[in-house]
Every structure is written in structure tokens, then in C-alpha cells.
């Protein structure tokens, strides 16, 4: 059965199509879907080419800023509003891929991909989805947890970070471009020598990027000392099954997550809060 293509600028139509047809996908940069088509994946039967200015927009909105689902990594890197995401976006793929890969695609990328999403989790971003009446917002973490409901993502909303600062690192085998062994994104707010807020997310480590609540709890409330960091690192594996693949075993990934959280927060220790 040949592939069907629908071009539309109506998000409502696109949302209905993907909700009702499991073979229908909204095409982002093509970096995931085109490969599946080349390899004969029969699950991809219907491509929706959705257009509209909002989808590529990167602009301030009340209380934060919005990034359209079809904004590419290169678009993110070119947008001063999205400065917090520059390091994560630059860590995705190589130049050609960054010109193609989209924010929306990154949300649904299979691990070990999803570096930008890891950072978005630490920034407490919300997924902006299409609904019958217009737009809905839901925490990104919820969207990632429920992969069975097929929602049309229009973009993400990144709230103002206040005094919090994002620390980000990605470990790969091949440099400068490589898939993640582990990606760590930690947003920390500090006041009076104490950590007042910590959001810590990991990518490459499990079936999807996730927030590590145990780590966050361990970090919050006290000074960012070596002992606190070490205690926090031991909580990374709580409630997850680390992923094994051709790059590394789950055991190694978890070990590296601990090391890189320590190294990342070790640098944060010395940095201005």
C-alpha cells in the first residue's frame, strides 16, 4: 500500500488524523520518519505535512517563551530567546542534522536520542498540544509518560527560570558528534548558599528522558556540597531500568550518569548561584 500524504495548515485536522490513524505521522524534519520509510517500516503509512507560522515560531510569551514544534535545532541556536537551550541544541547531531531535526521530533525521538527534551524537562517546559478548542498545555513529563495517546504537539512553552540556572552535559563515544551514553540536565536555584530548587533530568539512560525526583529531593534544601552531590547521585537509578543497547549496557550508563552528575554539579558548586 503506497504512502499517503496530506498537506494542511489546519492543526485540528492534523490532530484528528493522527488520533484516528495509527499509521499517520506529522512530518517534522524527516530525520526519524524518512529513515523508517527507507527501511520499509510498514507502520508509517500516512505523512501529514502541517504548515503554519506558529509551528516555526520562537517567541516570548507571557511568563516564558514558546518554541514551535517545527523549529529546528539550528533555529533554536539562532534565537536569543532560547539561549538556555543553546548548549543542548548544539549537542544534537551534526550541522546538517541540526538544520533538519525539529524540537517536536526530538520529543518523540527514541533513546539514545532526545537531548533537547532532557534539557526541556529540567527547564520545566510544557508541551503545547492541539485540542478541539485550540491549545492545551501539559507538563512535558506527562506527555512523555503517556505515549499511547497520540496528541499533536504544536510546540513547547519554556517558563522563565527566575534565578535558576541550567547545567548540561552529554557523554558520547564519538566526538564531536555522537549519540548519548548519558545526558544530564540540571536546573538549580540557590539562595543563601542553599539549593532552593532542583530539577534534574536524564537522557539516554532509560526508555525516555525523565526527571529524577529522588535526585532532586536529595539536592534541595541544603548547600551544594560534595556529600550532598554524592548522595543525590546514588538516587539516579531509583525506579528506572537503565537502557542497554549497542553503545553501552544499562550498568555502564547508570555508572556514567552518577559520574557525570557529580562532575556537572561539581562545576556548578564553584559557579555563581
Amino acid at each position, binding site marked *: 500500500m503506497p504512502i499517503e500524504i496530506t498537506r494542511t495548515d489546519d492543526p485540528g485536522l492534523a490532530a484528528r488524523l493522527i488520533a484516528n490513524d495509527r499509521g499517520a505521522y506529522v512530518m517534522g524534519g524527516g*530525520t526519524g520518519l524518512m*529513515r523508517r520509510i527507507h527501511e520499509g517500516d510498514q507502520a508509517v503509512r500516512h505523512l501529514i505535512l502541517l504548515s503554519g507560522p506558529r509551528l516555526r515560531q520562537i517567541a516570548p510569551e507571557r511568563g516564558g517563551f514558546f518554541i514551535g514544534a517545527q523549529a529546528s535545532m539550528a533555529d533554536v541556536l539562532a534565537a536569543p530567546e532560547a539561549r538556555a537551550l543553546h548548549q543542548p541544541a548544539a549537542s544534537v547531531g*551534526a550541522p*546538517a542534522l541540526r*538544520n533538519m531535526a525539529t524540537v517536536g521530533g526530538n520529543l518523540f525521538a527514541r533513546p539514545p536520542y532526545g537531548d533537547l527534551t532532557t534539557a526541556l524537562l529540567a527547564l520545566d517546559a510544557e508541551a503545547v498540544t492541539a485540542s478541539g478548542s485550540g491549545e492545551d498545555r501539559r507538563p512535558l513529563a506527562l506527555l512523555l509518560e503517556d505515549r499511547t495517546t497520540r496528541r499533536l504537539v504544536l510546540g513547547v512553552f519554556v517558563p522563565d527560570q527566575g534565578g535558576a540556572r541550567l547545567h548540561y552535559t552529554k557523554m558520547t563515544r564519538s566526538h*564531536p558528534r555522537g549519540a548519548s551514553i548519558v545526558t544530564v540536565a540540571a536546573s538549580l536555584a540557590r539562595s543563601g548558599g542553599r539549593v532552593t530548587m532542583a530539577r534534574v533530568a536524564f537522557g539516554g539512560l532509560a526508555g525516555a528522558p525523565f526527571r529524577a525526583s529522588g535526585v532532586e529531593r536529595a539536592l534541595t534544601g541544603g548547600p551544594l556540597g560534595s556529600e550532598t552531590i554524592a548522595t543525590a547521585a546514588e538516587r539516579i537509578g531509583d525506579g528506572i531500568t537503565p537502557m542497554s543497547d549497542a553503545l553501552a549496557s544499562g550498568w555502564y550508563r547508570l555508572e556514567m550518569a552518577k559520574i557525570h552528575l557529580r562532575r556537572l554539579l561539581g562545576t556548578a558548586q564553584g559557579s555563581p548561584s
Partner: protein
Amino acid sequence: MTTPVHFTHNGRPVSLFTEAGESLLSLLRLKLGDQTPKYGCGQGGCGACSVRIDGQLRLACLTLAETVDGAEVETVAALSAPNLDPLQEAFMDHFAAQCGYCTPGMIVAARTLLDTNPRPSRDEVIEAISGNLCRCTGYEPIIDAILAVAAQEVSA
């Protein structure tokens, strides 16, 4: 299902039909007869099919053909005429190709770098070609060739 698509290919306007799901790489190679972009993986992992779309470096294998409607598409063939690009000369002088299969994509990536950053550092060169795999050379002569052109173009 076929869809008409109109775009400029290396400066020349072209119009043809594309099948649903067809990649730009397939369109260029099988329908337009431009064999300079190569199929290396179809996964976005090797850069052998690197082309420029509206001046931006892209992978032809992951580009749905009908999305280039109205765009300017350039392959390494655009750089070779009427005269060779200095990068092509440098690749020849530096023995920066062995089997030659990655070379067209590599040169497109390098040219895109130099157009936006005429004086790249070695690390910037490495970053710029990091999506273009080479199995033969160990990259060293490729990096040297690109840096040599950068030095030339800046001093000229």
C-alpha cells in the same frame, strides 16, 4: 500518488513528479540524473548525500522530495562549474580522498562552513564535518585541506 515539484537544481529550474515518500536523494539521482550526492545510509548518519537547500546544509536522504518545492537545491556539481572550487583543488593537493565516495558530501559541508565562517579554527572544521563519515583517510588530510583553503581565502 505523484505530486509535481518545481525547484532550482544547481541554478537551473526543474519540474518533475515525485512519488509519495520519495526522498530528495532518490529524486536527484534517479530522476534528475545528478549522481554526485551518494547514498551511504539513508539514516542521516553518514553525510554522503549532503546538499544545500536554500543555502543550508541538509541531508538529501532524509528530505521528502516534495518539500523542496520552490527551493534552491545545490549539489557539489554546482561548485565545480565553471571552475573548480578551491576546496576541490585543495582536496586534490592534500590527497584528501581515497575511495572518493564521501568526498562530494564532504566538500559541500566544507564549503557551507567557509561561506559562513571564512576563518574557522581546527575545532570548527571538525565540528563542520562531523556529520560526514570517511572510512578511508582518518580525516587528517581532509581537515588539512579545508584549513589550507581557509588560510588562502582569508589572505586573498
